[in-house]
């Protein structure tokens, strides 16, 4: 690990970070990670990466181009010769060792993620990193349990079906859960025996570099390569390369189309996760008692503020039944007002900084159009300027709008702590509103009636319907979109299929010819 970036001086951290001593320091400059080491970008250019906590520069990061992508692909293809044919047991041990290493450095990675992304440290500590650990362990186990199949065509003819890795794959990672989203894609790809070239989001380039340094002695060189930079300069050459066997992307619809277009030129498969506008449906019976369940439902309502709303499945539309609307909303707004805003590094903080300035601006533009369309602000509605060092950070008040489902704030993924609430009459009305959206990634259903839950859950056209819960992301449950929310699934062992070829050996054990010729 004696490399360029690890020799770079320490990054200037916010003063509020005093007292944290991460085991892996944040450096003032990061290169690419290619072939198991830091490699400077070919053209020698870097871009400045701010921390959203203060809006001040944190570090410089490689501004890569197609030359760097080619280098990473060279390293990946070289490594693939051996990695593609390692035994499942060997790969599972490596995945488990990686999981152990993340767990042993959980506080450090959580700290780095919070500094780079702006999300509260209580989330990185208790959600992002533990989930990353669990995903590696899950796929280590899933791989060991995976079996091919045998079909007996007739007594002397057997079809064997083997799982084989695709080879070298490309993955483009979003900025909302930078390391966890990388792990969602990495763990199954590595389990299946692939080598990977990753392009992290330019807003959040740091945690993946800390991770690569951390596991450098576990993963053979070239198995995972990280190319930093901008989408148009580094992401595009990766997505359009004829040297990848698959591209996985999390992002938005237009780029999703562009990636499919590039993939069509190379005839390779794509998986896409493109966001949503998830309905969170509260039936009248949730208020039948003021008990633990009602308390849980109110937390489920406030979940729109998790990760500052920067979640593809953010429950950003709340549908509340007419009969209980006023009673429920009084409690729900009060619960939202209890959300603790502030310094993301403070363990008490529930909502931190938006990930970037342009994200902040976009959210503010939606607060603007929401008001112009006549939606009523029930709480929040403005940028939050915190005092002191946080004053130039990217903060937004948790906001609840009341309006109707044809408003743009009900139809577009704001990707901020902004909830749009409307009311519904009955089951059919709720289902119609829930499904009146371009997207179908997540949904929530809250009711004490099992039949209501079941019928609503089956009726909503979304890939994941949380039922009397929200924002749980276990590795052993499939996640992915209907409609314009994407193609394919993430998490769950079925993900292995997205990174494997099926090899069929069709074998005749009969010495007799067919007799045609």
């Amino acid at each position, binding site marked *: 690990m004696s490399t360029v970036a690890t020799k770079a001086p320490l990054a200037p951290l916010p003063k509020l970070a005093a007292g944290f001593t991460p085991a892996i320091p944040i450096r003032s400059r990061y290169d690419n990670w290619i072939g198991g080491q830091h490699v400077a970008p070919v053209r020698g250019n870097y871009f400045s990466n701010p921390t959203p906590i203060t809006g001040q520069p944190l570090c410089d990061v490689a501004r890569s181009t197609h030359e760097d992508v080619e280098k990473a692909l060279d390293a990946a293809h070289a490594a693939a010769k051996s990695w593609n044919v390692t035994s499942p047991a060997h790969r599972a041990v490596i995945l488990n060792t990686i999981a152990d290493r993340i767990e042993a450095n959980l506080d450090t990675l959580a700290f780095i993620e919070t500094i780079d992304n702006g999300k509260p440290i209580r989330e990185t500590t208790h959600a992002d990193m533990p989930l990353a650990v669990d995903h590696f362990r899950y796929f280590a186990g899933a791989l060991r349990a995976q079996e091919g199949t045998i079909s007996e065509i007739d007594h002397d003819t057997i079809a064997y079906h083997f799982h084989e890795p695709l080879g070298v794959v490309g993955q483009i990672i*979003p900025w909302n859960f930078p390391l966890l989203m990388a792990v969602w894609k990495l763990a199954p790809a590595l389990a299946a025996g692939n080598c990977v070239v990753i392009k992290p*989001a330019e807003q959040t380039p740091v945690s993946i570099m800390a991770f690569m340094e951390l596991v450098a002695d576990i993963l053979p060189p070239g198995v995972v390569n990280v190319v930093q930079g901008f*989408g*148009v300069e580094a992401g595009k050459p990766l997505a359009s390369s004829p040297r990848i066997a698959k591209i996985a992307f999390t992002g938005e*619809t237009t780029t999703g*189309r562009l990636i499919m*277009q590039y993939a069509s030129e190379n005839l390779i498969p794509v998986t896409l996760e493109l966001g949503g506008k998830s309905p969170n449906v509260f039936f009248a019976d949730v208020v039948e008692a003021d008990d633990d369940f009602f308390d849980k439902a109110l937390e489920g309502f406030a979940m729109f503020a998790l990760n500052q709303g920067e979640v593809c499945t953010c429950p950003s539309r709340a549908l509340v039944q007419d009969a209980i609307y006023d009673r429920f909303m009084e409690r729900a707004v009060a619960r939202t007002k209890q959300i603790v805003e502030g310094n993301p590094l403070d363990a008490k903080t529930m909502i931190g900084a938006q990930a970037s300035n*342009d994200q902040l601006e976009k959210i503010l533009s939606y607060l603007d159009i929401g008001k112009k369309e006549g939606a009523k602000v029930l709480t929040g509605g403005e940028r939050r300027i915190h005092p002191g060092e946080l004053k130039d950070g990217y903060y937004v008040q948790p906001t609840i709008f009341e309006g109707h489902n044809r408003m743009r704030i009900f139809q577009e993924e704001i990707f901020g702590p902004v909830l749009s609430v409307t009311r519904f009459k009955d089951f059919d009305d709720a289902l119609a509103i829930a499904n009146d959206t371009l997207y179908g990634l997540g949904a929530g259903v809250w009711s004490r009636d099992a039949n209501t839950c079941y019928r609503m859950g089956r009726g909503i056209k979304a890939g994941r319907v949380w039922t009397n819960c929200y924002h749980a992301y276990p590795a052993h449950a499939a996640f992915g979109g209907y409609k314009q929310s994407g193609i394919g699934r993430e998490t769950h062992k079925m993900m292995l299929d997205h990174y494997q070829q099926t090899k069929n050996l069709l074998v005749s054990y009969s010495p007799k010819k067919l007799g045609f010729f």
Partner: protein
Amino acid sequence: MASHVTDVARVVITPEAEAVLRQLEAQHGPLLFHQSGGCCDGSAAMCYPRGDFRIGQRDVYLGEIAGTPFYIGAQQFEYWQHTQLLIDVVPGRGSGFSLEAPLGVRFLTRSRVFDEAEQAWLDACPPPRGPQDE
């Protein structure tokens, strides 16, 4: 009122955004915009070299801004058509493969609701679909 409305732009651009557009044109040649939706960098106007992004037959052509064609997906248009889009630019980072990201800026879509007279005019003049420059 309606008689006073003779032409309504579905999309307009700020002088600041136009200046960035000119800079990108000098570097990349003719461009186009496609309005995105969805996750992360979504709801942004993506700017690409013309011909790089394939405009589909159902994409809606909202008009030209500073000589550059602007499109939106057909289904998204259904939910957006009552608003005028104002393409602005803000300091920032990244929006998919959009060309402006390396400049440290990002195109931002602001919006306003059309008034009744404007909407009536627009409803009478449905926008064309599919690529307009071929």
